[in-house]
């Protein structure tokens, strides 16, 4: 699982490439964390997520939106992500965990929001490629 911070004029873009969809989702989430604070971090408290959406793109959007929301209300930076994704009927379901690094123990930039701009969720011969632009 890899992620890369990509060039974008005003904001930050994260690309992730992984053999499985779940690893690619985790990769983007780790990229989001890295975009906040590039230092390697570890948290003690485990958090759980459960999200349902109508498509893979909206699942990715809602997942990242949830992480940003929980960052602000629990005052932690989500890191060390693990997710599982299943499709049931017309809905995609994600269950995830992360460890929260208390914000008052780090210096971190604020990412405002996830955007749909140029978003990609694509299966390629090299694996799942995801690309997301975040508003800074």
């Amino acid at each position, binding site marked *: 699982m890899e992620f890369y911070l990509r060039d974008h004029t005003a904001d930050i873009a994260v690309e992730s490439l992984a053999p499985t969809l779940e690893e690619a989702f985790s990769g983007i989430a780790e990229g989001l964390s890295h975009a906040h604070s590039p230092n390697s971090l570890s948290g003690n408290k485990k958090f759980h997520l459960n999200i349902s959406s109508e498509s893979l793109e909206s699942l990715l959007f809602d997942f990242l939106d949830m992480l940003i929301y929980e960052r602000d209300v629990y005052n932690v930076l989500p890191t060390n992500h693990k997710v599982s994704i299943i499709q049931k009927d017309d809905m995609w379901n994600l269950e995830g965990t992360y460890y929260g690094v208390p914000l008052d123990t780090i210096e971190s930039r604020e990412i405002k929001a996830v955007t749909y701009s140029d978003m990609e969720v694509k299966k390629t011969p090299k694996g799942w490629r995801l690309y997301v632009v975040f*508003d800074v």
Partner: protein
Amino acid sequence: MTTFKSGNISLNQIEEFVWEIPRSGDMLVPARIFASETLLEQISQDKTLEQLKNTASLPGIQKYAICMPDGHQGYGFPVGGVVATDANNGCISPGGVGYDINCGVRMIKTNLSYSDLRGKEESLGKLLFNKVPAGLGKGGVLNTSLEDIEEILSLGVEWALSNGYAVPEDLDFCEDRGRRTDADPTKISLRAKQRGKNQVGSLGSGNHFLEVQRVVEIFREDVAHSYGLSQDQIVILIHTGSRGLGHQTCTDYLRKIEMEHATLLSKLPDKELAAAPSGSQLASDYYAAMCACINFAWINRQIITYAVRLVFEELFNKPWEDLGMDLLYDVAHNIAKKEFHMVNGTQRELFVHRKGATRAFPAGNPELPSAFRTVGQPVIIPGSMGSDSYILRGGDASLDLTFGSTAHGAGRILSRTKAKKLFKASEIQAKLKEQNIHVTATLDATISEEAPGVYKDVSEVVNISDFLGIGDKVARTYPVVNIKG
């Protein structure tokens, strides 16, 4: 006719600093770019022009889609864009406002001059940095409850007045008197309110800042006099918006529009162009929610104003009123407003979306405070860190050319990742200190990413605005102390 080519987009020069992309394909109207060739070169480096073309296909769009001299790529809509749609037969789009609803800027005056501040810059910087949270997870000046948030969303700056954080003149000199009466807090999600609860009176990060400045040049003496500005005067700029509450609200409505209009959205070149049809419940809900976020942002800037006044009281050992710390004006640059404008000889009610663009109403407009009605509204153009800012006056040509709008700043030309490679924070800080500019930031990365070289030349942006008559130059200011997240 002079033309400019950018990839497969061709622009015709209409007149000096006015370029047009003619109607083609799905465009309902042409697109106009107000820029010099130099700025147009920079604008054409990213997806700005393509995004501008896309906005020209929005239902009910009037006249032309607009890109200001400081335009750059956004998401869906370019930043530095103005899109006016028919309020009854068009649409309203959260992407045309931006995630940071009512990101804007206010200027506070003082009766101090630069010499009063010499030798006190470091102390002032420390006091401001300790008093005004900047960055992530630093809380806000105030600890508020969800009940407070409900009132703030509804009342705007009137809440601050009732609770001792504002004086009546702070309402007089704020756009819309600091309260959008169309606000409906019930249209804001609990998630958004929970995010905003801990952020009342906070700067955030990125390009937001608090800057103490000195007036270094006056261009129009009479207007400067009306505004209460003079050579060497110390003024304070506050640049921030609606924080997590606004960001969440934009996200929420983007998803609501997506779910209600899924088929339509799947045909759009960018989902961030998602729009709710005028007259629909969703359009009405978004407008009411946006107005509530606008109120929240005004409170945010007002509470920071309150904190800054306390800091100056401490430093100078005098009440802030005796320091003349009155509000000059507060302007929004991420906003959609219902306004009446003349289109093809008829007055039409429009949603004027300004995303990275500022209202610039000229003299005579009844919406302006009486103090500005004969002179035109102040427009505050913050420069990038370490560079000039400008105060303009709403120009006589603005209503005709740009739905009463002008630029909002300098616009980026360099990405954050590139900037971090090119600029070392400590070197930038040292260089600025040599110019007597004191910068304190929560993160070194911010200093690199906001370095002077990453933005367009703000003086060129402002000169074009002045030449076109959409925003006339009144004064130029220069930084003394800068606080960032």
